[in-house]
């Protein structure tokens, strides 16, 4: 089992969800986050006071899935979240040791 954590542009969330659903991923968690990478942020000006805002709004999605789906899921997220402009985000994959569905008590791959 793996967990994929992807930080993407907020307006790409729906496309990413649809792409993942198409390859058979049924469920994810999305969080509104702020961050920056190569996209440095932007300037805001209020009555002449200029502030550089480094942290930009992004959406972080987390998807837990069996090893067999990982490559296709990465590809689906990359295609759906891609604009070609700086600030498209990143995808991280990490091992997942255990999982449990709270309602039924099913564990690991049955719980995904």
């Amino acid at each position, binding site marked *: 089992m793996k967990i994929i954590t992807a930080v993407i542009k907020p307006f790409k969330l729906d496309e990413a969800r649809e792409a993942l659903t198409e390859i058979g991923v049924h469920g994810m968690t999305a969080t509104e986050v702020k961050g920056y990478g190569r996209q440095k942020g932007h300037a805001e*000006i*209020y*009555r*002449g*006071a200029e*502030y550089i*805002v480094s942290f930009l709004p992004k959406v972080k999605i987390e998807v837990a899935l069996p090893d067999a789906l990982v490559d296709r899921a990465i590809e689906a997220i990359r295609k759906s979240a891609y604009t070609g402009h700086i600030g498209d985000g990143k995808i991280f994959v990490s091992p997942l040791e255990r999982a449990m569905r709270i309602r039924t008590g099913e564990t690991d791959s049955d719980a995904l």
Partner: protein
Amino acid sequence: MHSSIALGPRKEFLIRHGGDGLRRMILRVAAALAPLIVAQPAFAQDGAGKVDAADTAFMIAATALVLMMTLPGLALFYSGMVRKKNVLATMAQSLVATAIVSLLWIGIGYSLAFSGDGAYIGDASRALLAGIGLDTVSPLAKTIPEILFMIYQMTFAVITCALVGGSVAERMRFSAFMLFCVSWLFIVYAPSAHWVWGGGFLQKMGLLDFAGGTVVHINAGVAGLVCALVLGNRVGFGRENLSPFDVSLAVIGAGLLWVGWFGFNGGSALAANSRAVFAIVATHLAACAGALVWSGLEWLQRGKPSVLGVVSGAVAGLGTITPASGYILPWHGIVVGLIAGAVCYWFCSVVKYRLRYDDTLDVFGVHGVGGVMGTLLAGVFATRAITASGSDPGVAGLLEGDPHQLLVQAIGVGVTVVWCVVGTLAALKIVSLVTSLRVNADDEREGLDIALHGEALHQ
């Protein structure tokens, strides 16, 4: 002494059994309270006024509009421009200014500003609304009930005190601000209102101030600057991100101010007449011109017109047109708005940062600068055809070839600024004897909502 009927048993007891001195004192208090308790017919009907129903209806509406400028107008306008941790505390300033100033106004503020014929201050004849009955009319507003004139003027005192709070938002102690409202109302506002509108020396000198360029805007702006300098800059000013919590709140607030200003300037005609409408038209045009100029200059200089710039320009236009609004032609309003938008923009976004003082919400840059310009411009644009009424031949300004009025306006500005600086320093000194003016650095970091009010916004 019919008023003794209204006294409670405890006071009756004191009157019967207390000493002579105490007894006299109680009777005097009772006499002062009498008009509040028993509807007392008016004895001192000053002017030969007759109440006009249309004027009265219009002024009731105008009174409501001006109160709406503070609650919720100014509360929203200001709180939208502070950081999230200070939103409630900033609203609290507008709320408490309304409550305190209203009560003090009925207590003695109105009387000091608008009764008697002293050159510098009124008298106590209207303290606790003494002598104001159903039929009473003030010589200063002869076609509406005096009680209406009193509450209309109250809304001006309220918003002036509330405006000052913007300069010290995010760092002044709540208790200190409350005490400041008390001391400043008596030291600065009430005398100033008397000089300009209550028959004082500036009015006798011929100063044109239709709706409060001196009394409201210069006073609020200069007091704001003095307060900001005395309290010092916010922690992080010039280094940290102090950007507004929610500009959309400020937009709603500015919209309420804009609409309310129709009652502020229109109502200052004190009658439902043509001059009121001329004032409203000039006011609206100045707001429009100011909004376009401020945001247009931003567009040129920074590449983008900000929404905060649009509303700031509108408020600058509104504040600046105020003293001139009832004396000028509609197109003058556009010129005043253009000048206001440009100068106030330059002041708030360039001069303030060069001088490095922290007037949190630009009370001086908008209201102080606008008030000075507007009061002077009233001497430029005053038009005889508009200022004349009945037997009054009216006043011609510089544009009609008479420089004298501009001189009078300049004296009015000078006197108001000097007294406001001195009076505000005195008011702050008095407050600082009781409590410190500023919150400590930890409370300022945490935010005044939690530190002073024990509440917080949640999302």
